[in-house]
């Protein structure tokens, strides 16, 4: 026995050290694994009966229509401020008539999808996390299970699908309002020639730019809703934990959007090469 314990001590120490070193890696893989599993389950339940159209429409209303005022407000000022800074830079070269093209492109490819995603994360993502967290701590999710209703199908699937559908629509709203803001600022405050503004905008932007923005925003929709649902669904404890889960949902959703934006931009540039 004594011999055996001497033999195993270094091994145990090595295992303990390995365990400590591996813990963060395991935790990271576990985190992404859980999210991936939840996403797969959400889609798997989408195609199984019963189909509850009402839940999807409610979530689309919450994510989309409910976010419309904030998207319009932020979109208008984002377009205007983007035009302001662009004109300031282009004036150095005397090329300020390119402002319509520059703002149009940056809105279509970056500003509209990213800002829309951040706004919806802050508004709808936090709402989802809080609602699901409250349902968890008040046993409403357990109650669903006792009625043989799958909580993933009832709660997660509608939220994820609604976000994926509504994000591109809201992004297009952001694009339109943002361009309107840029137009008003450029034409009425900076006296840019309206013909040049519109001509270069039409010349430089392409439907594929909006398609790229649409693809990005759909992916952002999946990411932000998944982050929110994951945090809310897995709350344990009380009101304090619901608050913390909401904070984590907004942080995780925002970080996911910005990190995904980098990789998606890179990937989409391969599929949609720049045209002359």
């Amino acid at each position, binding site marked *: 026995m004594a011999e055996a314990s001497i033999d195993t001590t270094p091994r145990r120490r090595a295992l303990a050290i390995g365990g400590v070193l591996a813990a963060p890696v395991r935790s990271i893989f576990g985190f992404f694994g859980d999210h991936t599993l939840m996403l797969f389950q959400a889609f798997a339940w989408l195609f199984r009966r019963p189909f509850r159209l009402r839940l999807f429409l409610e979530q689309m209303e919450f994510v989309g229509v409910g976010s419309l005022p904030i998207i319009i407000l932020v979109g208008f000022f984002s377009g205007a401020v983007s035009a302001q800074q662009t004109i300031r830079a282009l004036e150095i070269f005397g090329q300020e008539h390119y402002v319509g093209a520059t703002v149009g492109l940056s809105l279509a490819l970056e500003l509209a999808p990213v800002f829309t995603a951040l706004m919806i994360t802050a508004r709808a993502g936090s709402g989802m996390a809080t609602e699901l967290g409250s*349902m968890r701590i008040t046993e409403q999710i*357990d109650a*669903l299970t*006792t*009625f*043989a209703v799958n909580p*993933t199908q009832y709660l997660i699937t509608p939220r994820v699908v609604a976000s994926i559908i509504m994000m591109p629509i809201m992004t297009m709203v952001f694009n339109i309002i943002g361009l309107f803001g840029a137009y008003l600022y450029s034409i009425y405050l900076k006296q840019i020639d309206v013909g040049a503004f519109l001509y270069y905008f039409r010349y430089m932007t392409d439907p594929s730019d909006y398609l790229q923005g649409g693809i990005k925003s759909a992916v952002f929709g999946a990411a932000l809703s998944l982050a929110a649902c994951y945090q809310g669904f897995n709350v344990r404890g009380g009101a304090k934990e619901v608050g913390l889960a909401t904070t984590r949902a907004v942080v995780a959703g925002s970080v996911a959007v910005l990190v995904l934006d980098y990789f998606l931009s890179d990937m989409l540039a391969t599929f949609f090469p720049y045209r002359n």
Partner: protein
Amino acid sequence: MPSTSPDKRSNPPAGGKPGGASDGKSGASSDPVQIRIRGINKTFGPQHVLRGVDLDIERGKINIVIGGSGQGKSVLMKHLMGLLKPDSGQILVDGEDIVPMNDRQLGELRRKFGMVFQYAALFDSQNVVENIAFPLIERYHLSREEIMTRVRDLLKRLDLAHVGGIEQKFPAELSGGQRKRVGLARALIDRPQILLYDEPTTGLDPVATKNVDDMILQASRDFGVTSVVISHDMASTFRIADKISMLYDGKILVTGTPAELLRSQHAPLREFIDMAGLSRDEGEQGTPALEPRR
């Protein structure tokens, strides 16, 4: 995910008492024991919560499981509906072992059960009618008139119909007692055979506690259901129980009628009883003291 959503049926079980043979749900039998739990063990990581629990739940009776906080009462209750699976052991509901059942079978099994949660667990976003009708809407294709008839009948039978505008009220607008009754109505609407109550009197004042006791007695008497109540409220337990079992250290320490338990000499049980201020004299004369269960 432990649950599944079985396909909807066109008709719910036809009238009659929930636990009766006319309810259309399988398993109605003359066996006085409706649920048999045999040697179930459950661990969560290093924590051994249930250590070979043996328990019989008697048909049509109010069966109460008492025990201190953290003794595994809620874990035991979740096993009854198949919300948790034991590491080992058997749970026989009407003679059928539910442990090896898959999600679809468990979904079917849960139709036999109704559950009343500690704080009612009503859906915040739905009004009283939508909450009560939820199991019917999810399980059957019924017309709005049929659903409303059954909801209104239950509201009447549970003394909720007199509350002005109750149908359109949301859970936040109800008192604690009303919420519990609406929770009970939701659990009863699909005429279950077995009703589970998770600490129904926690956080209630004495009057509200008495009302909840009456509600449990009424559900048992008028609807003929088998009741399983998880509680640590001794006064309430001794007021309504047909049979009491004490869960202690992951096992059933003692089981018997209220009178038998009052005469028991088990130290943890005596501590419970004495702390609740219950007297040994309240038991029936001549009832023998209990021997420890092995």
